[in-house]
Structures are given as structure tokens and as C-alpha cells.
């Protein structure tokens, strides 16, 4: 678009400047006011009382809410670990031994993007029903489904990391020096794709903390389900928690951009799609 900077008449440039200012200002208002409103709402005093942090302080007094926060944090940890243990070695293995399989691997990993979460949950319901009767009905079993939701983002991020290093040469060198497969994986591959692993971990944490559709439909109370439920009884506390989870996600994002200097960088579009899955 440098065309427009090409320098024609002054008035044209001025018009463009006015256009830019108006559009960006309007967008800024539309996108920032709701965030500010949440802060405002969550610090509001009852009646004519002055601003207070009461809603924030009372978060701990709702046992269901505390349980939901704990469950969501545990789910985030379990999902991330299962995803990494399942996906990373398989991707390395496919790269080394079964390169013919990589298109199928990609197709499978990106498949969840085309299936709305609300559709997936219809198929998951009987499976969870069966698991609940025969195995466990703990809320932590949700991580099985969450790993599937995370697959596309984790795959992309790990794929970018693996593409940036020469997996084959590295592992062959290590193998010829007598290293076993575990050593290759743990001491050669993992250190070399550490930023990609961190990226995928952050994405998976962000996704799990924001997930609503699957938990809601399988009747589990995770953080978002509890926020939505509480919002009908005590909007102030509920919005305070929502703001807190937003701030937490923001911290994750900052951390992510901090670790995100190397190659295999995470794309904004990926984050955007995490958002889509969360809403799905």
C-alpha cells in the first residue's frame, strides 16, 4: 500500500490521514470500552457506596468457584503434558522413519479445525457416558477431549520448530555415538525445539482455561461454565473472575512473546483460531 504514500496532491494525503484517524479511533473505542467496563463493573460498590474491591476479595468465598478454578488449572496442566507426550515423539518419529505418513499426520491434526466443538461434543457424549460408568467420571477426564481441541495449534507450532532444525542429521549423529531413542528425544530434540514446545504449551493452557462448549455440554463445571453460572446470581464476582482470567491470559501472551524470539514463531492467526475454538 505504499502506493498511496507515492506523493500526489496534498489534499489526498490529508484525506487519507483523516480516514485513518477516524477508523482507528472508532475501532479503538469499540474494542477497549468493553474491557474497561468490566474493570468498572467489578469494582462497583453496592448502591451509592464508593468503589470497592469487594467482588475481587470474595472470589475465595465461593467454594464452587474455587473448585472450578482448581479444576481448570489442573486440566490445563494435564492437557498440556498429554499433548506433548503424545504428539512430539510421534512427529519426530514420523519425520525420521515414516516421511510418507506426514501428509496424513497433518490432515489428522488439522481436522479438529473443521469440526465445530458443539458437533464434536455430540459424538463425545456417549463416550464420556461409557467412561463415567466404567472408568471415571472425574472432571479431569475432560483433558482427553481437550487434547483433541489443542491438536491443530500444537501441531503447527511443533511442526514449525521441527522444520527449523535438521532432525535427521541430529538424531543420526547421536545414534552413531551410541545414544538410545529416549536420549535422542530428551537430550537432542527437545532442547532444540524448546521454544516451539513452550509455544504449544502456552496455546494449550490458554485454550483450556477459556473452554466452555465441551464442559458445558458434558455437564462439567470448569472455570468458564462456573463464571457463566455465577453471572446469573452475582454478576460482580463473576465479572471479576472473568477479568482475572483475561489478565491471566494476557500474562501468558506476554510470556509467549517473550519466549517467542527464535524461529518457529507463533503466528497471530493461530491465537485467533484458538479464540475461535474457545467460542465454538
Amino acid at each position: 500500500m505504499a502506493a498511496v504514500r507515492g506523493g500526489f496532491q496534498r489534499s489526498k494525503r490529508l484525506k487519507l490521514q483523516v480516514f485513518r484517524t477516524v477508523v482507528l479511533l472508532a475501532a479503538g473505542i469499540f474494542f477497549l470500552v468493553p474491557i474497561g467496563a468490566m474493570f468498572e463493573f467489578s469494582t462497583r460498590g453496592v448502591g451509592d457506596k464508593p468503589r470497592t474491591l469487594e467482588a475481587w476479595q470474595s472470589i475465595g468465598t465461593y467454594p464452587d468457584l474455587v473448585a472450578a478454578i482448581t479444576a481448570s488449572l489442573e486440566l490445563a496442566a494435564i492437557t498440556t503434558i498429554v499433548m506433548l507426550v503424545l504428539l512430539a515423539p510421534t512427529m519426530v518419529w514420523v519425520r525420521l522413519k515414516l516421511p510418507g505418513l506426514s501428509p496424513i499426520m497433518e490432515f489428522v491434526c488439522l481436522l479438529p479445525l473443521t469440526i465445530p466443538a458443539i458437533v464434536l461434543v455430540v459424538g463425545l457424549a456417549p463416550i464420556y457416558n461409557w467412561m463415567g460408568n466404567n472408568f471415571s467420571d472425574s472432571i479431569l477426564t475432560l483433558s482427553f477431549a481437550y487434547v483433541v481441541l489443542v491438536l491443530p495449534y500444537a501441531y503447527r507450532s511443533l511442526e514449525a520448530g521441527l522444520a527449523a532444525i535438521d532432525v535427521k542429521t541430529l538424531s543420526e549423529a547421536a545414534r552413531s555415538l551410541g545414544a538410545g531413542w529416549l536420549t535422542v528425544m530428551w537430550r537432542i530434540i527437545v532442547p532444540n525445539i524448546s521454544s516451539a514446545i513452550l509455544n504449544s504449551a502456552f496455546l494449550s493452557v490458554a485454550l483450556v482455561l477459556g473452554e466452555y462448549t465441551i464442559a458445558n455440554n458434558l455437564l462439567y463445571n470448569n472455570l468458564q461454565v462456573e463464571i457463566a453460572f455465577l453471572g446469573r446470581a452475582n454478576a460482580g464476582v463473576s465479572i471479576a473472575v472473568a477479568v482475572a482470567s483475561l489478565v491471566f491470559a494476557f500474562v501468558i501472551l506476554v510470556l509467549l512473546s517473550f519466549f517467542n524470539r527464535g524461529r518457529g514463531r507463533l503466528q497471530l492467526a493461530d491465537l485467533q483460531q484458538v479464540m475461535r475454538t474457545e467460542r465454538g
Partner: protein
Amino acid sequence: MTIAGAPAVSTTAGRPLLGGRRLPLDWIGTVPFLAYVAVFLFLPTVIVLGGSVFDANGSLTLVNFSHLSRVYIVKATIQTIGLSAFTAVVGAILGALVAYAIAVGNPQGLLRRLTLSVSGVLAQFGGVTLAFAFIATIGPAGFVYLWLAQHHADIYARSTWLFELPGLALVYLYFQIPLMVLVFLPALDGIKPQWREATESLGGGTWHYWRYVAGPLLAPAFLGATLLLFANSFSAYATANALINQGQPVISQQINGALSGEVGSFEPGFAKAIAVEMVIIVTLVTVLYSLLQRRTSRWLQ
């Protein structure tokens, strides 16, 4: 859908794993992953597809699909398509304006980086949080509403539209616009300044440039992005469910209704039929999107 295992066996020519054995065993390394995906991705898909056409006794039936003609389902489908089309078109136009405002600026400038980062932060907005943000803003207790009411402008004079479809459309725009910016900006960046100069040197003005050069080049990208936005809003559930408690006006909420039996009756087969309807629409839109995307990438390299 379980084709993945088969080619693995035939295409492996790697080193033998154990001693001098020549049997290709490399595919064993992929078994845990494939087994997991089979249970938690393929099996649910098969359950949805199969469950929509088989009844409880295992015989083939189309009765679940015939239920799709129920008045409230048809209404929800039309409403969801309307909502998605509206937020896609409006989101695409507004998002394109924002993208253009960014694109004409300094490509290394602070404003551009800031806007893109903000889009990334907004990307963390889960559906429930988003609904609450708008309730806190223009809900009946939100400060914008209260401020307007003090100034004798009651935006809910007719109805509390925030908790109805118009409100949902407004909230959806909050994620549609950033998505459009992120999807459309690369296309705008691909427009070369030389094309503008060529138009000028041939005597064309701004109108000619947009009508005959930039417009036709950007049209496929714009249409494709609009379709993506459509699919995005069509498959959304969390925002709608957090915002609207009554009536279930959106098709994804109807799935929840048929699944939970809270409203009406518990009909898992019917839920699957609605799910298949959704998948078909989303797939159609996605295929069109990728076709348009291919056409765009041919021009804007």
C-alpha cells in the same frame, strides 16, 4: 477414517528396529497417537454420522433428518444463517477498513505492531468473557447504558435487545472484525505500489484504480475472508449460550437442547442430525473459502 494405519505398513523402508529382522516395524511408533486420535476424534465423528442415520435398533432411518423440518429448527437455522451472514458482511467491511487504515501506514511503525498485538490480546477473549464484557458495558446495569439513560436516551426503549439476536450480532462483531483484519491484511500488503503508479501514468484516477485494478484483485480475498467469518460465527456456541438464556435462537444451542433434554425432550439422534446439518454447511463454506484463497494466492504473491 482409519486409513492411517494401512499405508504406514507399505511405505516403510526404514532401518530394521531389532537386530537383523526385516519386518517393517517402524509404524509401531505411531500407534499410541493413532489409537488416541481414533478414540477421541474419529470415533466421535463416526458416532455423529452413524447416529444420525441409525435408530436405537440399528436399522437405517431418515427420521432424525425429517425432524430438521420442525418449525423451531428451521427458524433457528434461518436465524443463524442470517446472523452469520450479517456479522460476516458487516465484520468484513469494517475489518477491511481497519486493515486498510493499518496497511497505508508505516509497515514497521508502532501503530501497526500495536494494532496487531491488540488483535492477539483480543484473541484471548473466550466466549463467556466476551458476553460479560458487553453486559458490563451496555447491559441494563452497564455504565454506557446508565450514562445514556441519564441523558434521556433509553436504548432499551423497545426491548432489551442485548439479550436477543441483535445483541448477539453486536457481540459477534467484536471477534469478527479482528479476524478480518488478520486475514485480510496480507492481501492488502500484497498490492504493489507500481500498480497504482501504472494506473496514474495511464491517466486513471482513484476511481479507476479501485474499480479496475485493486478492486478485482482484492475481491476474491475479500469474499474468501467473508466466508471464513461466516463459518466462524455459524459454529459459535459459547457466546450465544452465555448471553441468551431464553428461546435458544441459534442452531448450536438447539444441539444442546436436544442433547440435554432441558428444553423439550432428550433426543440424541436428533442432536446428531442437527450436528450433521451444521457440518455440511460449515464444510460447504470452508471449501468455497479455500477455492477463493487459492485464486487469491495466485495474484498476490
